[in-house]
C-alpha cells in the first residue's frame, strides 16, 4: 500500500480524495479536513514549507500510520502558499476493513503532522499587518499521547 502524499499550492479536492479512499475496498473511511479560519480579522494565511523535506516528512507520517494500523489506503495532503478564510489547508484520511483503525489512524495523522512536518503559518490581517504563528504546546502534547 503506497500512501498518497500531496503538497502544493493547488486547492485540495477533498471529494476526489475521499472517493479514492472509498475505492480502496475497505469497510470504513475516516478523514479530517482543516479549514482556514477568519478569526480576528485574518484575511490571508500563508503556508511556507521546506520543499523536499516536506514530502519526506509527510510520507514518513503516513508510513508510520500504516505500520500501526491495518490500513488499505492512507492520504496526507497539505496546501502551501497563500490562502483565504474558508480554504481547505490540510486533508488526512485512511481506509480500513473496520472503522476503528481508520478513525484512530486519522487522529494520529493530523496530530503527528502538526509537529513533524516543516510547515510555518503566517497570518495577514485587514490592516496590512502580518505575523508568524507561534507553535502551541497543546500540539506537542497531542503528538506525545501517541508515544
Amino acid at each position, binding site marked *: 500500500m503506497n500512501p498518497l502524499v500531496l503538497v502544493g499550492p493547488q486547492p485540495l479536492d477533498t471529494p476526489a480524495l475521499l472517493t479514492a479512499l472509498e475505492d480502496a475496498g475497505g469497510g470504513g473511511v475516516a478523514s479530517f479536513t482543516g479549514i482556514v479560519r477568519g478569526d480576528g480579522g485574518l484575511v490571508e494565511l500563508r503556508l511556507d514549507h*521546506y520543499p*523536499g523535506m516536506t514530502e519526506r516528512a509527510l510520507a514518513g507520517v503516513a508510513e508510520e500510520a500504516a505500520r500501526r494500523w491495518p490500513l488499505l489506503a492512507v492520504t496526507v495532503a*497539505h496546501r502551501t502558499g497563500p490562502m483565504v478564510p474558508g480554504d481547505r489547508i*490540510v486533508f488526512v484520511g485512511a481506509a480500513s476493513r473496520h472503522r476503528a483503525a481508520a478513525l484512530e489512524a486519522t487522529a494520529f495523522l493530523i496530530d503527528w*503532522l502538526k509537529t513533524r512536518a516543516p510547515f510555518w503559518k503566517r497570518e495577514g490581517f485587514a490592516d496590512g499587518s502580518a505575523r508568524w504563528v*507561534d507553535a502551541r504546546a497543546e500540539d506537542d502534547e497531542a503528538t506525545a499521547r501517541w508515544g
Partner: protein
Amino acid sequence: MTIELLYFARIREAIGVDAERIDPPADVDTVAALVDWLAARGGVYADAFADRGRLRAAVDQVFATPDASIVGAREIALFPPVTGG
C-alpha cells in the same frame, strides 16, 4: 566541507537570506555548535539565534536535536518550531 545552510520563516526574515554556503571549522561538529558559531558573527545572526528554545533544525532533511552531529552533512536547515496542519 561546504554545507548548504537554509533558513525558514521567522529565522529567514531575521537573517535576510533564505540560504548560504558555509564552511565551518572542524570543531563545529554539532547543531548546537553550528548555531553558536553563526551567532558569534553578531548582528542579525546574534538576534536570529538569541532564543535557542524557539529554534529547530534539520540535518539532510531530517529533524535533528541540538546535540546531533553535522559531520558529513550536506544540507542543514534552521527554523522556528513548525506550525502546519
